């Protein structure tokens, strides 16, 4: 079985099968680039991911492992389709997978899934964060994400005034 070494920003190396790695759009491209530039077709590719630390990379690989037999979703679907797939893909395993994570980890996962082009993981993590926004007030959102308002002068008040337009029935 052809393997590939994936190395995290903090230097941890993960040895995974190329078949599994290729389910990430980014890793697939990297492996193919390595193949083209390498004379030795037997050489084991080594890929450094400088933006993702070991803990997060392990989670991504774990998710890929679980979903290795899912059909690959095209990256750019129209909105309607993309949505449908996100709902379809959310299995009990995914829910258990995400349940113990705090929001910081989930956000790092979103970044990682986006960087590595793993659409399914990106969808379920985004959905989780969305659920922390939906139906909440501005202050509740700020608290949940540990954010502070940094608007100057009357900018916030002005934005509030604009928001009054186009109210949904």
């Amino acid at each position, binding site marked *: 079985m052809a393997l590939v070494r994936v190395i995290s920003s903090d230097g941890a190396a993960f040895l995974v099968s190329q078949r599994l790695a290729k389910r990430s759009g980014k890793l697939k491209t990297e492996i193919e680039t390595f193949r083209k530039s390498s004379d030795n077709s037997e050489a084991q590719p080594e890929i450094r991911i400088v*933006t993702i*630390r070991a803990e997060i990379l392990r989670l991504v690989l774990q998710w890929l492992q679980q979903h290795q037999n899912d059909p690959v979703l095209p990256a750019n679907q129209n*909105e309607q389709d*993309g*949505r449908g797939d996100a*709902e*379809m893909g*959310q*299995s009990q395993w995914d829910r258990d997978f995400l349940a113990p994570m705090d929001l*910081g980890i989930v*956000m*790092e996962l*979103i*970044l990682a899934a*986006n960087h590595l082009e793993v659409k399914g993981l*990106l969808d379920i993590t*985004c959905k989780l*964060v*969305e659920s922390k*926004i*939906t*139906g*909440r*007030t*501005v202050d509740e*959102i*700020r608290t949940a*994400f*540990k*954010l*502070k*308002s*940094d*608007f100057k002068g009357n*900018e*916030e008040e*002005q*934005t*509030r*005034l*604009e*928001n009054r*337009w*186009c109210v*949904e029935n």
Partner: protein
Amino acid sequence: MYTLETHPLFVDLVLEKLFQYLPEKDLKSCRLVCTKWYAPATKALQRACKPIVFGILYKINLIRIRPDLDTIQQFMNAMSASQYGDIRRELPFVKFDIRPYMLAPPFMHLLKQFLLEYGSAMQSLNIKLAFESADDFSKDCFGPLELSSLKSLEFCNSVHGELRPSLITSMRTSRGNLLESILNAAPFLESLSLWCDSENIVWPRDAINVLKDMKLRYLQNLKISFPMTDDCLISLSEINAQLTSLTFVLREPMFNPEEFKQILDSQRNTLKTLKLIDLQCSGPKIIEIPFMSQLETLEIEGTFYGENSTMALGNFSYAKLPKLKRILLSSCHKINFDLNAILYTSGNKGTVCHTLEEFQFSLDHNCCDLSGNCVRRLKQVFPNLRKLSVIFTSEAKWVLNSVFEHLTSLSELVINVRKCGTSIDCALTGIPPNMYEHLVRTGMYKLGPLSLDPRQLLPSITNLKGLKYLEIAGETDANSSKRFSYNNSNIVPFTEFSVYMAFLKMRRLGKLIFRQTGHHLPQDVITKLASTVDFVHVK
């Protein structure tokens, strides 16, 4: 470890993704959270928001549009205080629906100011002009206008002219100049919809002539909803655009199928979606669809008036449509639309369509022509049919059972439920009404496997062994039945029975959706369902 504040990538790329599906209300909150969220939330809001409507429809004796200059002025005041022009600030609303009752000079002045100021951000514009104004638009009536973001334009001439038809023929306005000025300023326009009253026989020629002289490089979607004479149709076949989607409303008094075929011919290499709406036809029509190499969707909507109005597809063959994937028929009444062409195409070639994946027939009333034979025929003509949408009414109970009998390889099924009382349970489970009543009364259906006499049973939904997606939709909750003054028999008593007797047995069903039917299902049944299928309940 990066946090939201310290990691710029999060803000730039991922917030966009995150906001993609949020509704308007939440996006408005997100704009207020912090400055890093402001821009991506505003961008998402631009897309999610409905158009801002200037002008209010009201009804006193006649339907009128109230002139609403004040609102436009207020909007401009509110937005100009935010100083858009600055790179950081973005206009949160980019879709507008302008309905001037009259285009008297004060409105024209305001419209010009409005378009000049916000035109470059505007993505969608809908202008509905009333009839009565004696407006006079010069060529280039807005001067140096730039609508460089405008993707979609809907232009309706005369919103209540039909109430005063006597005025129409005597007056010719210069609204062609208005349309031309807007189109000239919008080089990236992708969608255009044109509409006018059926009595207005002057405007179509003006409008089509404007189109004909225009370079419409990016135009893909065109919708024409007015009656056209032969020369209009010919002009339309000569426009400078390669369309992927055409919606055409067939309207009397004049319509020539030959010229219409020329229009289709002119778009034969690009058109993917063709929608025909038959709105007002007094006589029979035969429409021929020529060879179209890219056509994927054929949609026919018949809101026919009158019994003499019939439409048929002449010389029809699937060999001419090598990429056809979907046929969608709605409101096509037996008397008005001839199904034969679609189900029994003449000749040896083109009688079978291997590419077709989806078939939708929503016959709201009197659909008795789609007998069991027709359903069986669907299987022969479309051997690769994957998705089917049907309407289920009390008059058409048998539709489902013949689907379950013949179309067993379906993977997606959408059932629109209308006015049917308890018969939906019987249809889904294949259990005849007398047996059904007994089972419900005794509650036996909850107790597990039943030994029922198979000779008495009709085909049930469990016959669809490969079904992965099932959607059941209907106007069924108490409020809507009140609104449409339905009686109780129209409420779908949804349907613990079907859950126990059918859905729980369908192991391959990936997704089950109920629309507007949920409150009848007890919580424990929903839980039970959720354990076997990926159950989604939409209110």
